[in-house]
């Protein structure tokens, strides 16, 4: 148990109001768009209307001659500088500006720089490109056909196949599936979706020819990694590169990769010696930057007649678009998809994934997800319902029967993970109680008699977050540790700098709460700074729910280093041996004499004014934390829907989310994260898809077609929690940002399928639009 701090100190478990919110609410934040530098000019991208076409000529004269235009950069220009291609974050490369041919609609072809953004936009219209269209490959299932066009002429391997990856025991799983008395099979497509953060991507690149320093203000979730990549790719000395990620309006994985716009801005600034600003439009963001999912999955479950699970076999086709620009740890081509055995105690499992190229935007980023965990959770939670339907068993009963029991942790999964802790029955039972499950089933039965459509969907997900241990986890070679540096000032106030970078998560509050918990310095007295690579310690950034498990642990460890130094100072001040001192948040006191104490503020002052002999002055510490394992948050979500037989509209009547993310830093922030993630899950389940037509035209490239939920569409979320601390995290915390987005899609879909299961419906692919439901109702003869 962690010691409880006072509300004034505001350590772990206090719903401290977010320190950063005042400046956001008052419009006093500084986003990339707010950066204005003297002499700054603007860049505009020219993009391809074709999904696959040969570039015969790029004519830039008209644009160059347009008044106010300073430069037009083409792929050929970059080729001369050796910069027309750049490495992606995952063993591939991608074009910065196209040369030879374009591979997806909206691909970057030229970059126009002008005195103001309107001139740049007008001049971009004047860039004339001759294209010769080529056969387009949209369907990933056709990517490996003999007659499919080979998209990547730059690669030695003349195939659209990117990788094959497998884990588990194929033979044993095949044999279990062959002999099992009951089998269930699910083909599910997790559509291509997009994080669509409130703020699009952008940057200001400023090269100072006098100092040789390049400063880039950038919408980056991982500023340090970007600095290193810029140094490696552009050949600039890393000490002369400063990446500043200012306030960011949402990232969700979309702002992890390096985009051509950043590189072009840097090149233009180097060329012109002036700061260059480039800000994406909404459509550019939706059409060309990191998408998520696009997984075509098949799950087969083997079970005994009583519902005991025996094996799981998963086969997946991953559509990566034109370049494999997945942002994920380098040893995991399908991310942490092998968490697909979920919360269930499988003896045997096998999982294989094949990645292919298509004429679509590149990516495969982890949208509010720890690298393909959303896909995995959706697949297993959906498949469990298919099996329940097959067995004519209540889906809750099936889950309860097969959960990994609480006494089996740490649990070794058949696909290689060691789950740190869990109590799945507890989370499920609380959710059942909160929603009144038995009564709802009775109500459903009554409604069916009357011909009304009501469904209940359950999802009991297990997450895997906090990448990750250095022995297995790196991104482009850099180990996935994270860091914190704390300085306590003489007056007892403190500043901490982190290797992470918040995009709305509330780090300025939660990391301060960790320090408050460990040192007893009030939250109000602590400043948290992130995102400036010149001042912050090196870290891999914020995504994959890794901030609390990794940087949060680093913060805790750095605080403890300060506390241990404080113990020496307190002993000196109180004239006793260190061993005779006891700690409570905020002060050391002499054992048995609580009145004789020194506060952390007194200790801080003494660190600069009255030190014991031989002790180094100052009160600072830095810690780089390499987590021993990942953390495994979990939960049970239950959703109740009613379906309108006239319109096909699905109304989410109730939604209960019980989450267990171990010890909680700030309950209010956790609840906010869960509300946000559930709303994004709702959008994915019912509203959103980046679809392509047969010519590779994007059909979800504007907010006309890619819908974002508003308060009108969003139901009331009911939350609850159980607490199973992580045994290896210094604070017992696990990370929570993604859980609601990972766990909820299956709950929504399960509820809709449950409402229609008596009509013979077994699965519906997302997004479940009213049109899709109405067509089913019509086919089943129940539409009104």
């Amino acid at each position: 148990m962690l010691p409880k701090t006072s509300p004034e100190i505001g350590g772990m478990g206090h719903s401290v109001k977010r320190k950063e919110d005042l400046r956001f609410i008052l419009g006093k934040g500084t986003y990339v768009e707010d950066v204005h530098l003297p002499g700054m000019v603007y860049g505009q991208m020219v993009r391809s209307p074709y999904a696959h076409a040969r570039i015969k000529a790029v004519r830039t004269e008209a644009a160059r001659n347009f008044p106010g235009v300073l430069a037009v950069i083409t792929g050929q220009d970059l080729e001369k500088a050796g910069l027309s291609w750049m490495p992606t974050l995952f063993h591939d490369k991608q074009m910065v500006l196209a040369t030879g041919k374009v591979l997806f609609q909206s691909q970057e072809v030229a970059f126009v720089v002008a005195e103001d953004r309107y001139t740049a936009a007008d001049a971009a219209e004047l860039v004339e490109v001759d294209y010769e269209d080529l056969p387009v490959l949209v369907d990933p299932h056709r990517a490996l056909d003999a007659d499919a066009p080979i998209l990547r002429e730059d690669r030695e391997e003349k195939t659209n196949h990117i990788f094959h990856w497998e884990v588990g025991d194929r033979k044993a799983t095949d044999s279990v599936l062959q002999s099992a008395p009951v089998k269930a099979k699910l083909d599910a497509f997790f559509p291509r979706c997009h994080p669509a953060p409130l703020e699009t991507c952008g940057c200001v690149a400023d090269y100072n020819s006098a100092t040789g320093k390049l400063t880039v203000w950038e919408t980056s979730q991982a500023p340090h990694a970007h600095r290193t990549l810029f140094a490696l790719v552009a050949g600039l000395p890393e000490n002369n590169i400063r990446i500043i990620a200012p306030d960011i309006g949402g990232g969700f994985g979309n702002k992890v990769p390096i985009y051509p716009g950043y590189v072009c801005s840097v090149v233009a600034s180097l060329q012109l010696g002036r700061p260059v600003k480039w800000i994406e439009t909404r459509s550019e963001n939706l059409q060309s930057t990191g998408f998520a999912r696009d997984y075509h999955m098949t799950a087969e479950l083997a079970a005994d007649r009583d519902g005991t699970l025996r094996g799981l076999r998963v086969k997946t086709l991953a559509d990566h678009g034109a370049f494999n620009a997945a942002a994920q740890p380098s040893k995991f081509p399908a991310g942490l998809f092998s968490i697909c055995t979920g919360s269930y105690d499988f003896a045997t499992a096998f999982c294989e994934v094949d990645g292919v190229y298509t004429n679509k935007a590149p990516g495969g980023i982890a949208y509010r997800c720890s690298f393909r965990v959303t896909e995995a959770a959706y697949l297993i939670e959906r498949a469990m319902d298919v099996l329940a339907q097959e067995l004519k068993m209540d889906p809750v009963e099936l889950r309860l029967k097969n959960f990994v029991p609480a006494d089996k942790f740490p649990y070794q999964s058949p696909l290689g993970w060691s789950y740190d802790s869990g109590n799945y029955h507890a989370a499920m039972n609380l959710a059942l109680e909160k929603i009144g499950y038995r009564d709802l089933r009775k109500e459903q039965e009554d409604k069916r008699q009357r011909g009304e459509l009501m469904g209940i969907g359950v999802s009991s997900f297990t997450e895997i977050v906090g990448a990750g241990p250095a022995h297995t986890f790196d991104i482009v070679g850099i180990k996935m540790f994270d860091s914190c540096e704390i300085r306590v000032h003489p007056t007892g106030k403190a500043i901490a700098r982190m290797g992470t970078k918040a995009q709305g998560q509330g780090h300025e509050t939660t990391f301060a709460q960790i320090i408050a918990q460990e040192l007893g310095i009030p939250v109000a007295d602590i400043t948290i700074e992130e995102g400036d690579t010149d001042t912050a310690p090196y870290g891999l950034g914020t995504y994959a729910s890794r901030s609390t498990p990794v940087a949060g642990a680093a913060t805790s460890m750095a605080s403890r280093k300060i506390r241990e130094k404080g113990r020496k100072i307190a002993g000196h001040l109180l004239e006793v041996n260190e061993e005779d001192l006891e700690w409570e948040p905020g002060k050391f006191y002499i054992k048995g004499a609580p009145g004789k104490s020194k506060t952390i503020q007194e200790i801080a002052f003494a660190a600069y004014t009255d030190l014991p002999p031989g002790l180094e002055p100052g009160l600072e510490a830095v810690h780089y934390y390499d987590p021993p394992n990942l953390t495994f948050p979990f939960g049970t979500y239950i959703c109740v829907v009613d379906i309108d037989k006239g319109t096909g509209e699905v109304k989410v009547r109730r939604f209960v989310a019980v989450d267990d993310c171990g010890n909680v830093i700030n309950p209010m922030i956790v609840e906010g994260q869960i509300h946000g993630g559930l709303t994004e899950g709702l959008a994915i389940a019912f509203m959103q898809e980046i679809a392509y037509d047969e010519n590779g035209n994007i059909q979800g490239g504007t907010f006309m077609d890619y819908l974002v939920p508003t308060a009108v569409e969003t139901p009331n979320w009911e939350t609850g929690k159980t607490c199973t601390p992580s045994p290896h995290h210094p604070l017992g915390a696990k990370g929570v940002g993604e859980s609601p987005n990972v766990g909820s899609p299956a709950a929504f879909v399960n509820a809709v399928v449950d409402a229609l299961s008596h009509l013979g419906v077994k699965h519906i692919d997302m997004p479940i639009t009213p049109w899709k439901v109405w067509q089913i109702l019509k086919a089943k003869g129940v539409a009104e």
Partner: protein
Amino acid sequence: MAIKIEKTFQVQEPLDRVWKFLSDPRKVAGCIPGAQVTEALDDRTYKGLIKVQVGPSVTDYRGEAHIALLDNEKHEIQMVGKGQDVRGKGSASMKMTGQARALPDGSTEVVTVSEVNVVGLLAQLGARMIQEVSNKMFEEFTRNLRTQLQQERLVGTEQSSTSGTAPQPQPIKAVPLVLTVARESAGRLFRRIFRGSGPR
């Protein structure tokens, strides 16, 4: 994006007059908002141009149209065309068949089926938007057609258009068109909501 557009309209003119008009690509082009035939490569193949205005920028789509079938007995015409935006912003291809028949009251009915394949910015507007835009274009086309036929009858200029100078075409204003369409779609949506009837 491939879409199929089927349209039927009537003209208060006799079949032979309508057919004569419809089988002359220059005259037909004169009725398509923003379109112009620039050159006849042979008696069945023409080069042409359509100006489309999206926001402040006017884009020229240049291409070729070929009459694949011209049946003066059945009054049937089949045309295939392909055009590319001169600045490389996209392209469109089309296969269109038109058939005219006399109605008992002396007027003429024209049935057209067009299969249009669009690539680029326009295709991103989504199938339903293009459908609505083409509806609008078609409305304008039939209005122009009727007016032209009427004028020809009144002033007796019923002659081949090759001798005359074609007027400078006005660009199709895609944005105002889209806005009108959006307004109409929204209007329909609201009516639907308030009536509480079926889905889109």
